[in-house]
């Protein structure tokens, strides 16, 4: 079977030093995105467990799989939650969620938790779209812009390139920096056209690192224009999978003249984290769910 270079690391995590049973409030966030799904479990507003996996063809199942994986070996079930918020493209298809909130609001709130209250601009570079979000010190959205209709400049585009060049996705960023001189960016904004363009560059004898540099550079420029339109205010931070790609991040920082804050958590869980924090706020406002509902896991 051919190696799937696009495949990023799917994993789950839990804070093994913490006993969730002593917490007075358990809240959850599930982010069913177009490419990846995450579930986050918070105990009294602190991160307790999460999972990060590929989204399947069925949103309800993806949500359930992500949550089950986050809960693996914790002894917790969905019945133990006080409130769960669904977010992402599949937010209305999370069968066990009590409320759906957009990923724009959730990334702002999650970014605020991950990067602290000084963050004012959050760039969510997701699987199939990008969002430039301005927020206040609480992580409340004050303005936002999304890219239009097309997957260029997003995670899925990067996966396509990893596969085309036969380079594991985690290495794409580093490899793209291994060029002596920055090549011109690929000119096509469409992933399909950009792929054809890259194939042409390879045929012309460009090394893989140079082609990757050209693509990372194009992607950085594309999101730069989005940020410029919304009006970047420091501090600046990036969430989503592409935040892990130094080839895009470094180039974007250079273009912006700003350094992105360093993340304390996996940047892919920002949306689910924000959702779980909103769940906590809603419980505090008296909107807890009835415990022991009959949802099977």
């Amino acid at each position: 079977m051919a190696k799937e270079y696009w495949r990023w690391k799917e994993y789950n995590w839990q804070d093994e030093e913490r006993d969730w049973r002593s917490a007075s409030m358990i809240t959850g966030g599930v982010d069913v995105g177009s490419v990846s799904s995450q579930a986050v479990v918070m105990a009294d507003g602190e991160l307790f467990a999460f999972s990060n996996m590929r989204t399947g063809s069925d949103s309800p199942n993806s949500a359930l799989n992500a949550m089950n994986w986050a809960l693996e070996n914790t002894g917790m079930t969905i019945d133990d939650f006080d409130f769960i918020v669904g977010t992402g493209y599949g937010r209305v298809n999370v069968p066990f969620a009590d409320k759906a909130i957009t990923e724009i609001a959730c990334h702002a709130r999650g970014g605020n938790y991950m990067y602290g209250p000084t963050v004012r601009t959050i760039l969510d570079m997701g699987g199939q779209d990008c969002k430039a979000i301005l927020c206040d010190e609480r992580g409340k959205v004050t303005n936002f812009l999304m890219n239009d209709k097309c997957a260029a400049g997003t995670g899925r585009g990067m996966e396509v390139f990893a596969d085309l060049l036969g380079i594991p996705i985690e290495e794409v960023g580093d490899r793209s920096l291994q060029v002596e001189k920055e090549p011109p960016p690929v000119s096509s904004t469409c992933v399909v056209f950009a792929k054809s363009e890259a194939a042409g560059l390879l045929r012309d004898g460009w090394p893989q690192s140079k082609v990757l540099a050209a693509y990372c550079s194009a992607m950085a420029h594309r999101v730069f224009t989005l940020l410029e339109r919304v009006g970047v205010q420091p501090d600046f931070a990036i969430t989503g999978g592409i935040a892990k790609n130094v080839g895009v991040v470094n180039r974007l920082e250079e273009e912006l003249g700003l350094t992105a804050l360093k993340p304390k958590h996996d940047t892919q869980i920002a949306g689910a984290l924000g959702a779980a924090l909103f769940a906590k706020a809603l419980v505090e406002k008296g909107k807890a769910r009835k415990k022991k509902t009959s949802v099977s896991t």
Partner: protein
Amino acid sequence: MFSQFETWYRDRHDYARRWKERTGGKVFGCFCSYVPEEILVAADILPVRVLGNHEPQDVTEQHLFGMFCPFCRDVLAQGLKGRYEYLDGITIAQSCIHLRQTYRSWEENVPHDFTYYLPHPMHVASPHAVPYLYEELKKFRAAVEQFTGKPLSDDDLDRGIRLVNENRAALHELYAHRKGPVPKLSGLEAMWVTVSSMWVDKEEHTAELRKVLAQLDEREEQFGDGTRLMLVGSENDDTDFIRMVEAVGATVVTDDHCTGTRYFWNETPELDDRIEAIAKRYVERPACPAKDHVARTRFPHILKLARDFDVAGVILIQQKFCDPHEADMVPLRSYLEENGFPTLFLEFDVTVPMGQFRIRTEAFLEMLMEEDLF
């Protein structure tokens, strides 16, 4: 309560065909809301605003440039596909180049007994605008009279003006029911009413609307829970879009569209010279951005609507490639935001990317409201 308007909105062609059978009258397609309907109504002609139907199509490529707006493509497709085969004539009042090309292609490819291009002042703030339009309207009147074979008397024109004004007044009253803290109707219902008024016989439409207005105070259904929004932009008759906006927690309470308030907001005044009165009305109506330079009278008008209808935010929505609206969007957004009205900008195509629009609309509503989350 609004089912008749929904039916008229949906079955527009059936309505016009039946009207023709019933009255034996003529039906004219109007390509812009600047067409002086008073003169057509005075001549017993049914004015029908020609709109698209939001379906993908492949018949207009050879007629229109790629960067012309999706609305003009959609409109032309209706003509080329024979959907308006019952029209006896077509007419356009000059507003934008895109729609004029649509009109020209339609005129060349779809036969009608009557076609009339009505030059219309592009600089409506100019002191020459009314005298200019006055002269053009006299020629238009003469052309209509020649077509029907019947001269229009002052009494005919008075009747035309009265019937159109009565409809405008009723639409105003309907919008007044959206001003209070609990709107008496949804934005979708308002759209059915306003858009259908652009092709239903004025007298019939007004009578039906009067029936609804008489019952509206007693209506039990409430629309006070949604976030109050205003829609501003190009032509918009997309009920799927407004339905989605209201399904995610908003109530649309007013608009500035040529298929909404711009169409009916001001009445034709009473003047001895009826044609001068009509000219004044169309020059002084809330301006289309194609005609509003350099004055930009529409900005304070839009702000007043936003304040009068107490909206929490404004969705600015334009047809893709609509140059006049595009030119206004940046300063208009700044103007509204400086005056305390947050905005969301969206771009229409022939079909709407509903998932994308939905998330933006929901996030906008969350931005406006969700204090509970903090």
